[in-house]
Every structure is written in structure tokens, then in C-alpha cells.
């Protein structure tokens, strides 16, 4: 299914904002207008850098390079050291704790740092759809083990499609049902599909505004009467 044909599917499902992950964000931003062949893009399209680092040492450089061009920065790794380095950087927005079907294990330190830096944990559903048997069970078990720790520290969770094809996309109701498979509560599933994304977008808008100084500090002007 070409990318242009994905638009009607997404519209049927009721999506409005689209977060497109790419390892080459610069190229994605240049070709963003051409993604939809049938005219104007019906969605608000956000470019998210998909960073994969073999070790924690190379991560800071990749993050700062991506931060300059991308709307959002996501780090994908199942390695504990890389995850730890990612959550300690406030420039990261999303951490995807799985890579090539393998889910990493997190500890309380990683969860606390993620909560302090407002980094969301993202669970991808496409690997779940495209795997079977043992691999699918390991995937569900891996995400389920993370949920109590993330819940304890109030780390926002996102349910991402992780789609590489239009056929990997699912409607929000199904995405929420997948969240319940990962032992998320129904209210958490709702937040993971909508509210947590909205908060992320709002925060991104705030940090780009001229009134933003630093985390927790914003210039508030009195209303002119």
C-alpha cells in the first residue's frame, strides 16, 4: 500500500495528527509535501527522528543532531544502558523500549528519570500484529512487565502503530484493546491513544514559543486592557 493510499485508511479510522518516524528526518521533511500524491495532506504531519544507537556513547551526538531538525525525538533500543542514557536526556521525547521484536527490561531508575524528564514510553503494536506464538507472547510479557513500574512513577505511555505498511494500521478502539493486552487500565489506554499525545504536542508548542525560558519558567504578560 503506497503512502498516499494510507490517508483514506487513516481518515476512516478518525486520526487527525500523524507522527511519522524516520531515521533521516531531513529527507523526510524535504519530501513531506510529496508523501500524499492525491493533493494536500489532510493531517497535521509531525516528523519524529527514530534514533537507533548501538551503544550509549554515540547517543548524545545523535540526539542533538536530530533535535535540531525534528519535531520530536525518539530513541529505540532494548539495551538497558542505551535506555538509561536516553531517559537522562531532556531532549528526548519518546523512548521505544523494543527493537527487532525484542523488548528490553526497565528498572526503577530508568522509570524515575523518564518521569523527571517527561519522556514517554511507547509501545508499538505492529510487531504484535506481525508476530505469532512465542515471539508474540514474549512481546506481550515484556510490555506487561514494564507497566507496573511505569505506572508507579507516572511515566506517560503511548500506543504507537509502528506501521511499516498501511495494513499494520489499526483503529483507536483496537489500539486500546491492544493496550489492555499489555495490562494497561482502560483509562490508561485512552490516555495512551490521545491525551498523552496531546500533552506532548502542547509541550512542543510551548517550548517553541517566544515566552518559553526553561522547564517550569515561562514569561507571562499581563493582559492589556
Amino acid at each position, binding site marked *: 500500500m503506497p503512502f498516499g493510499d494510507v490517508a483514506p485508511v487513516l481518515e476512516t*479510522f478518525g486520526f487527525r495528527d500523524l507522527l511519522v518516524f524516520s531515521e533521516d528526518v531531513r529527507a523526510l521533511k524535504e519530501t513531506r509535501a510529496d508523501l500524499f500524491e492525491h493533493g494536500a495532506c489532510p493531517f497535521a504531519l509531525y516528523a519524529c527522528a527514530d534514533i537507533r544507537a548501538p551503544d550509549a556513547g554515540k547517543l548524545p551526538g545523535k540526539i542533538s543532531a536530530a533535535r535540531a531538525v525534528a519535531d520530536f525525538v525518539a530513541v529505540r533500543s532494548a539495551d538497558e544502558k542505551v535506555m538509561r542514557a536516553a531517559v537522562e536526556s531532556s531532549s528526548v521525547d519518546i523512548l521505544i523500549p523494543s527493537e527487532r521484536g525484542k523488548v528490553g527490561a526497565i528498572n526503577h531508575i530508568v522509570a524515575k528519570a523518564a518521569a523527571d524528564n517527561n519522556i514517554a514510553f511507547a509501545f508499538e503494536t505492529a510487531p504484535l500484529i506481525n508476530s505469532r506464538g512465542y515471539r508474540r507472547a514474549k512481546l506481550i510479557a515484556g510490555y506487561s512487565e514494564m507497566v507496573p513500574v511505569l505506572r508507579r512513577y507516572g511515566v506517560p505511555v503511548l500506543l504507537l502503530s509502528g506501521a511499516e505498511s*498501511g495494513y499494520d494500521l489499526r483503529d483507536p478502539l483496537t489500539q486500546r*484493546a491492544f493496550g*489492555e*493486552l499489555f495490562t494497561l487500565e482502560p483509562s490508561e489506554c485512552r490516555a495512551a491513544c490521545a491525551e498523552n499525545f496531546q500533552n506532548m504536542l502542547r509541550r512542543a508548542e510551548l517550548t517553541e514559543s517566544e515566552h518559553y525560558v526553561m522547564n517550569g519558567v515561562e514569561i507571562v504578560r499581563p493582559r492589556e486592557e
Partner: protein
Amino acid sequence: MSDAPVERDALINAVFSSACSVLGDAGTAHSGLMVLGFENGKGIVRCRHTAAADVIAALGLVSSINGRRVIIHVKGVSGTIKAARKKDASYGSAAARPPASK
């Protein structure tokens, strides 16, 4: 959603196969899963209300039927079949039925 028409029997097989994979045989039996009707690419699936999320997840995990990629789009959940038909007026012959006279 599929690029080719899907037959009813193939869909039922795929749905039950997915449900047995996710919920197990006993879980599928206890969910009360049943495909009530399927025509023109639209259908109604019945299950116990306590198992609705599990069944939706099982439907979402159907990725291909007879080797062709598909998406099962859950349009909504309803307590009665009558209300489910109202959710999509174009579904089945029931849409053409006149409202019941009082």
C-alpha cells in the same frame, strides 16, 4: 479492509484462529465469540461484554486471510444487535428493513 473480497468462511476461520492464539481455546469458548453475519465486507461479531476488549484485540490481530493482507476495522461496540446495525446503516439487509410498527 482488503484489496480483494473476503469470503465469510475464510473470515470466520481467521477470526477464531486469532482468538484461539490470543485467548486460548478455553478463553475463546468463555468469550462467547460468534460471527453473526458478514456480507459486502461488513459484519457483526457477538461476544460476552466482559470479553469485549479481548475479542477486539483478537480481531485486530488478524493480519491476513488466505494469504492476502487485511485490516478488521471495529466500527463500534454496542449492547444489542439492533443498535449495532444502527451504527452502520449500510450494513446488511437489516438496513433496508422498515422500522418495526408499534
